[in-house]
């Protein structure tokens, strides 16, 4: 008889902690997994109280594991075989599970006997299975302390599950369980990481990008869309609101004393973001700010800039070192996009010496003398929304490969 891994076991992350909301979480995770696996029509997803199983029905298990490893809300995954509760079948499946793992020298068997009607106790059964594996393999020995592979045998009422390799999941909460946030997405290294971390806490994101053609190039806009596409891989499609910012930026640059123009510009960005968020029923704004990194991210600057909105601002990176941010950016694949050499050409507008300690009363005073309402209306009317999908599902180019 040929045996195959017939399903994948998914262990929930923090979901088990959330008493009442458990159902919401499990449903959302189910939905997210289904969404990510839509290219595999044969698979069936079954969610239980403690874990989820994906019935493969012939689909390539490794491909599915590779996708599920990046879905938030999953603590770990294992390939599994389901057998009847009898010794012969379990022996055969355990041997298969061991042989499927490459480069194994040592193993250990761990039996959990949930079904007390099963006639052999777990300790004895470990020995029975261990002996069977030793007899039927070569150059593989038992090591109970540091085995290369641990064969788990989970004997439950009605069926036994045999698993070997355990893959770590991405952790966090399923995207969609913590509401929506509007992410200020520049082409830099920080903001996509901030978006990723928010998503890992279950947030669904939309993105907003301020575009100032011809000072900022098409290339920098494409960069932002590519970053959003990367983020979409961790959850659902991402709407990117592209704000034509040139006219407003020019006016600020012209009218506001140079030391303060950057502060005012940032305030306008938040103000516009708030309007967009309200239109989209989004309850918060997420930024990639990290304390002390640049002039706009000093305590004084953040105080002066933040005062423009009453919206909660999520700053996942606020206390994280640049090196750690770069590390995460590399792990999630946004780093190579962020460092593409198309700087956002916005530098034209950056004053030579922006105030690192702007005063809020001065800022409001300068702003009160400046009427930006015309530019604001004009710009709000011309926001373009581009929806990007994760790499896996899109696009015309894909057909070429």
């Amino acid at each position, binding site marked *: 008889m040929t045996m195959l891994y017939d399903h994948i076991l998914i262990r929930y992350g923090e979901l088990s902690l959330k008493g009442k909301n458990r159902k919401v979480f499990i449903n959302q995770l189910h939905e997210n997994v289904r969404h990510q696996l839509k290219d595999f029509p044969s698979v069936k997803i079954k969610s239980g109280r403690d874990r989820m199983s994906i019935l493969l029905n012939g689909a390539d298990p490794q491909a599915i594991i590779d996708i599920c490893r990046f879905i938030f809300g999953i603590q770990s995954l294992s390939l599994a075989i389901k057998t009847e509760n009898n010794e012969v079948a379990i022996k055969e499946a355990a041997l298969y599970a061991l042989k499927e793992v*490459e*480069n194994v020298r040592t193993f250990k068997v761990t039996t959990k006997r949930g079904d007390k009607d099963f006639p052999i106790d777990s300790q004895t059964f470990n020995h029975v299975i261990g002996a069977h594996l030793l007899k039927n393999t070569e150059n593989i020995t038992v090591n109970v302390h540091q085995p290369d592979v641990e064969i788990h045998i989970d004997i439950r009422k009605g069926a036994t599950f045999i698993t070997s390799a355990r893959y770590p999941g991405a952790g966090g909460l399923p995207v969609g369980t913590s509401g929506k946030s509007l992410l200020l997405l520049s082409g830099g290294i920080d903001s996509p990481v901030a978006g990723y971390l928010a998503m890992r806490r279950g947030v669904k994101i939309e993105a907003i990008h301020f575009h100032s053609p011809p000072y900022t*190039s*098409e*290339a920098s806009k*494409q960069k932002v869309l*590519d970053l959003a596409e990367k983020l979409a891989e961790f959850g659902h499609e991402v709407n990117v609101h592209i704000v034509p910012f040139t006219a407003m930026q020019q006016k600020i640059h012209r009218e506001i004393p140079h030391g303060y123009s950057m502060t005012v510009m940032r305030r306008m960005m938040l103000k516009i973001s708030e309007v967009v968020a309200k239109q989209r029923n989004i309850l918060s704004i997420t930024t990639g700010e990290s304390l002390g990194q640049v002039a706009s991210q000093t305590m004084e600057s953040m105080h002066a800039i933040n005062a423009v909105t009453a919206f909660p601002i999520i700053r996942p990176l606020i206390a994280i070192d640049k090196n750690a941010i770069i590390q995460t950016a590399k792990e999630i694949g946004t780093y*190579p996009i962020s460092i593409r050499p*198309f700087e956002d050409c916005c530098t034209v507008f950056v004053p030579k010496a922006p105030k690192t300690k702007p005063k809020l009363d001065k800022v409001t005073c300068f702003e009160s003398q400046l009427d930006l309402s015309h530019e604001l209306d004009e710009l709000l009317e011309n926001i373009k929304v581009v929806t990007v999908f994760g*790499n896996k599902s899109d696009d015309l*180019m*894909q057909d*070429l*490969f």
Partner: protein
Amino acid sequence: MIYFDNSATTKPSQEVLDSFLTVSEAYYGNASSAHQFGLDADKLLRKSHQQAGQIMNVAPTEIIFTSGGTEGNNLAIKGVALAYQKRGKHIITTTIEHPSVLSACRALEELGFSVTYLPVNQSGVVEIESVKEALQDDTILVSIMHVNNELGSIQPIKEIGELLKNRPTTYFHVDDIQGFGKVSLDLKSSNVDLCSISGHKIHGLKGTGLLYVKEGIRLFPLFHGGGQQTDKRSGTENLAGIVSLVRAMRLITEQKMHHPDYLDHLNQQLRQQLQDIPEVVINTPDGQAPHILNFSIPAYKPEVVLHALEENHIFVSTKSACSSKRTDESAVLRAIQLPRERTTSALRVSFSFQNTDGEIELFVRVLKRIIKELSKVMG
């Protein structure tokens, strides 16, 4: 027509040609240009890196697109040798490598490098012990092919990789031009640092190929210029070629996945039927690459047999196309110590997934007839 010379080159598949044409028509921008047209090309280029990386199970940034196998082998060997010559000047390779490896090594000898050319055993396989013995403190590169192009012998790449695993200053290059898509090789678990592939051996186009270069390895470029491909290979990327290559890689990988035993089946069929012809001796040992079968008809001039087959619209080769114009003796067959009557009378049949059982039967029937006819003159 029966085409049994797939190790020389293959027929480009229609899908590959379609991709080449579409990209040439719709994405002819320069991937380095800043306008939308260039950006689309750049995006497609990045997708190509991604897809190729996925197929080879390596990172997208570890792929350098080349003009084919010869460039890949040269870039790997000269690139590593020149970049790391301060570390050492010793290189190890084998006597049965493709001329693009052997000639590159000989050229480096002229520049002051020393090269060990390892012999192979009678099956055409390099002994792991001989690699171990050849290693010196100043060995910076080991370059060994995966599948031999004339004989089809498979080299113990995984074992050699294991041997070199704890030698961070010795890089391991594998010429996988004959093996890719036919004999599996997992680069990461085999500790391979560089690996060359060619498009036209897998139903892709001539002038396409790639070199896998493990993250962190420097190469002294063959081409200096605009800094494309992380400065390792300057020159405007041949985007249409690149996309078509990746498609060819995907197609052959899928074919192998869906029909893992097909080439082997063809090989066994031909082997069995050739064994019935008393004049024929099979040179390729059992258990080697499934798509190559080398055999000799001692006392029969192979060129004559080749042309006689050609008259019947059957195409095979004598030795490999790359070296068949030189002497009358196969260096690879000499390396496995076959007698001269066999090294001078060898023919090579090489299959693709497009060949069939029927073609093999017809080929054997025609070959029998040819031997019979020629025996009057030569046998």
